[in-house]
């Protein structure tokens, strides 16, 4: 499963000077499509928090963070700040997924579809793995059932590979599961 957004840990600080021999080191965990963008995002956020820029700072480390348990399902809560046509708003969203990157990807696509917010207008404030008891949204809570059972209502008929696709078929497919 290849995800568009990767999670990076970026560490940087301002350059040492005569007034400040050992400037404080800052670490951020953020999401970007690649390392270059991650470093850029790091400076963007750090500029807003401290009086330091890329020109008078140095990058110390950038590492990609991978999912520890991609075979278990988790409920992710994502706090975000996004820019709409009329201003900035905060939001809290929940997603069920096996990996945090998957949840973040779901968030970006959902924000794009539901609110027409583009990826660069979204800032992720915080993410957390939420235990089932503390989930707020009904759409995630409905899957917290150890005896979950539902039928698949409509069958999707398609050839097992794109190569076997044909424009015309002899008969209408049977869509009953």
């Amino acid at each position, binding site marked *: *499963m290849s995800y568009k957004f990767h999670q990076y840990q970026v560490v940087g600080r301002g350059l040492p000077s005569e007034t400040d021999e050992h400037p404080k080191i800052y670490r951020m965990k953020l999401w970007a499509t690649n390392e270059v963008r991650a470093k850029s995002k790091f400076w963007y956020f750090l500029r807003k928090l401290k009086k330091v820029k890329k020109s008078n700072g140095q990058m110390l480390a950038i590492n990609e963070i991978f999912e520890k348990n991609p075979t*278990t399902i988790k409920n992710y809560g994502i706090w975000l700040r996004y820019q709409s046509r009329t201003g900035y708003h905060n939001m809290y969203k929940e997603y069920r997924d*096996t990996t945090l990157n998957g949840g973040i990807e779901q968030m970006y696509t959902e924000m794009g579809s539901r609110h027409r917010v583009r990826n660069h207008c979204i800032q992720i404030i915080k993410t957390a793995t939420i235990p089932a008891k503390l989930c707020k949204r009904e759409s995630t809570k409905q899957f917290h059932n*150890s005896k*979950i*059972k539902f*039928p*698949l209502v409509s069958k999707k008929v398609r050839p097992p*590979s794109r190569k076997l696709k044909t424009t015309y078929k002899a008969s209408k497919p049977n869509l009953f*599961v």
Partner: protein
Amino acid sequence: MPFKRYVEIGRVALVNYGKDYGKLVVIVDVIDQNRALVDAPDMVRGQMNFKRLTLTDITIEISRTPKKKDLVKAMEAADVKNKWENSSWGRKFIVQKRRAALNDFDRFKLMLAKIKKASLVREELAKLKKAAA
């Protein structure tokens, strides 16, 4: 009209698209409306969209997200492999796979076998016709 095959923990499904085409997998948990956590003895547990799965009639007795050992044991206990290979769907699927994997020499042998079978059938038919006439 009512549904007979449900998405549930322990339902065996056939993968009908993609890299794992033709594999029998067990639904081990449900992620959300479109995806299931799916496992088989010879693959790493992963997520799969329901669009890629066709549910079968076979179910096994497992709890939610069992350990790999317990899954294999439950599959043995429910005898999934034999149930599948003896079911009419399973047999047809195996024949389809066999036919798709024929090479040119196999197809030649198949052609000869078909001609032989047809000639035997016609012989018998001729005998029956003569007896009836």
